[in-house]
């Protein structure tokens, strides 16, 4: 374990940015998001969850991967590949789990090469939580806000300093690269344990229980409950775009004259066009089927494929859905409740 005094953070950013691209949670005026760091930016390591989850670093909202031109002897293609190594600093435990859930999808055969390259070349520094929000519920999905298994480096905030624990080779070599800024922290291990323990205890339970919910939903596809939820849904993309586990995309061409670009971009099952087929048929014709899909995907379909619920309890949909059609509301209504309220 090593530690870094907070007053040395700017030095740390400069040192890292010299070697690689560095993504940090930056205050963009009200909303904090992971951006490539440049001198002068206002880094906010106290904000809990970035508005846009860090999935966007690996699975970009818009990603051009092919360029084409028409020439005399036919169409010429040029592949565009992701750019070099990066460090992603400040990922919260729920969001790290979100990235791991995306790994299940993008790294299974056939592998998604764009995603894979970014993933392999990026060093993730996770940051444990100290003060969970009232809308957090990560512990419902067995996520520990004080730990981040699978992150390359784990950072814990002790108030005046960050304590780092390397969890992979990439993490170790990052610590070596910044060794000049660090001090030994073996003596702080008790304090670190305590901060992590407190974080876990501070996550509200909301009286929720998802034990057996997946199985229960097996027979709820035609349940009348779907006919009630959806009526208030605006059909916007807020919940899906901001969800760290949503991963649907579309592929489109942008052609101008003789040249063009092929890109992939986020898509949302909440949009009517999402399942619209070339024939004009739409198997999810109304918002009812779309809302049902969003929740069954997270609580039933994905778990069937990968043995894990596809919600990490980050609370983004709770905070941002304009009509509160969020995961906590829906789990409760579906009967995933033990007792009490929020």
């Amino acid at each position, binding site marked *: 374990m090593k530690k870094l005094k907070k007053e040395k953070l700017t030095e740390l950013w400069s040192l890292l940015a010299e070697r690689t691209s560095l993504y940090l949670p930056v205050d963009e005026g009200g909303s904090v998001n992971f951006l490539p760091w440049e001198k002068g930016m206002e880094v906010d390591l106290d904000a809990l969850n970035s*508005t846009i989850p860090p999935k966007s670093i690996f699975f970009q909202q818009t990603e051009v991967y092919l360029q084409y031109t028409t020439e005399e002897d036919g169409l010429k293609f040029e592949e565009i590949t992701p750019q070099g190594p990066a460090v992603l600093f400040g990922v919260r435990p729920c969001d790290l789990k979100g990235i791991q859930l995306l790994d299940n999808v993008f790294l299974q055969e056939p592998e998604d090469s764009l995603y894979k390259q970014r993933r392999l070349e990026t060093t993730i520094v996770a940051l444990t939580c100290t003060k969970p929000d009232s809308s957090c519920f990560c512990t419902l999905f067995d996520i520990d806000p004080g730990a981040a298994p699978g992150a390359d480096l784990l950072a814990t905030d002790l108030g005046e300093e960050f304590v780092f624990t390397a969890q992979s080779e990439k993490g170790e070599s990052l610590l070596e690269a910044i060794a000049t800024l660090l001090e030994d922290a073996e003596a702080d291990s008790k304090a670190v344990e305590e901060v992590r323990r407190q974080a876990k205890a501070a996550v509200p339970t909301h009286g929720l229980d998802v034990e057996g919910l997946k199985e229960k939903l097996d027979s709820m596809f035609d349940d009348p409950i779907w006919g009630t939820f959806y009526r208030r849904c*605006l059909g916007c993309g807020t919940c899906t775009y901001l969800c760290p586990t949503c991963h649907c995309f579309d592929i*489109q061409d942008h052609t101008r004259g003789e040249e063009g670009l092929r890109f992939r971009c986020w898509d949302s099952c909440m949009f009517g066009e999402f399942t619209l087929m070339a024939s004009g048929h739409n198997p999810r014709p109304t918002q009812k089927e779309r809302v049902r899909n969003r929740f069954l995907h997270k609580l039933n379909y994905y778990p069937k494929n990968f043995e894990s619920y596809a919600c990490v309890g980050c609370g983004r949909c709770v905070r941002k859905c304009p009509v509160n059609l969020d995961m906590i509301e829906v789990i409760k209504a579906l009967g995933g409740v033990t007792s009490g309220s929020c």
Partner: protein
Amino acid sequence: MKPTVDKLKEIAAETLVGKKAELILGWQKGSFWWQSFPAFIEKQEELDSLTWDPFCVANLSIYLLEELKRKKKVALFVKGCDALAINRLLQDKCIEREQVLLYGLPCKGMADRAKIEAAVGEELSIREVRRDGDEFIVLTDNGEQHLDASNYLLDKCLSCRYPNPIVYDQLLAQEIDTFPVKERFQSVVKLENSTFEERYLYWSGHFNRCLRCFACRNVCPACNCRECIFDQNEPRWLGKANILSENQFCHLIRAYHVAGRCIDCGECQRVCPMDIPLQELNRKLIKDLNELYGDYDAGTDPEEPQPLGTFKLDDPASFSES
């Protein structure tokens, strides 16, 4: 006298029993003290879920387009801003007056969760926030706190000019005195006085962040086209790439489509997950229209000709200005 939850429940019960409407749109509480969301009430046993508290901000009129496809008559509660939205839909011929039964609720402004949390400071233990006169009473695990409500309103409510509904069938409480409001064009004037480069930086910074989630459009009572140009895919007017040029195109088109029709309800800006100040763009157009064609307040009178929807033979400005 302020409208009470009991009054809302009573009137809703009468509506159902008397078969005055097939559906009642109201609000119900969510899991959190700051959540009150749209409720769709069709049965007696659902009546009890109705609420009326400082978080009933959602404008229920936007659901009429969908619900009136199946229902002959829908009853709904309308605050001041929601009533303007009803007039918007009437003027755009999206609904007929006989299709709706309107219960008016004079409104002193809705509460801002973030402002209250910042003041109370113990966000995990707030249980309930209710209004009492000019105060918000915050119930926490450690007792009660009284806040001067005017400091904890949603930004959009700070410049509300129509707290009393201007269209209704029955008003559920006495009209309230209008209160002093923030001048709504302040930030527009500030932008107008900046340089072209500054303005470009300002808006491109904001539109760069746009997610293109369309919450702004979907919540907007003036965005009532059956098929939005942004959803058409043959041809695809708006490319799906999230890049500045497409985002700017999207927002300029929307601003112009609602110009002269925007009721300045502020819903678009309130629901934007990326905190983009959309209302400033709409207000710039409102201000320009007022200056060019004389004062006009969209949503106040569905019969009044619209500045951009009217043709005059003696129009002082011809199509070509040359």
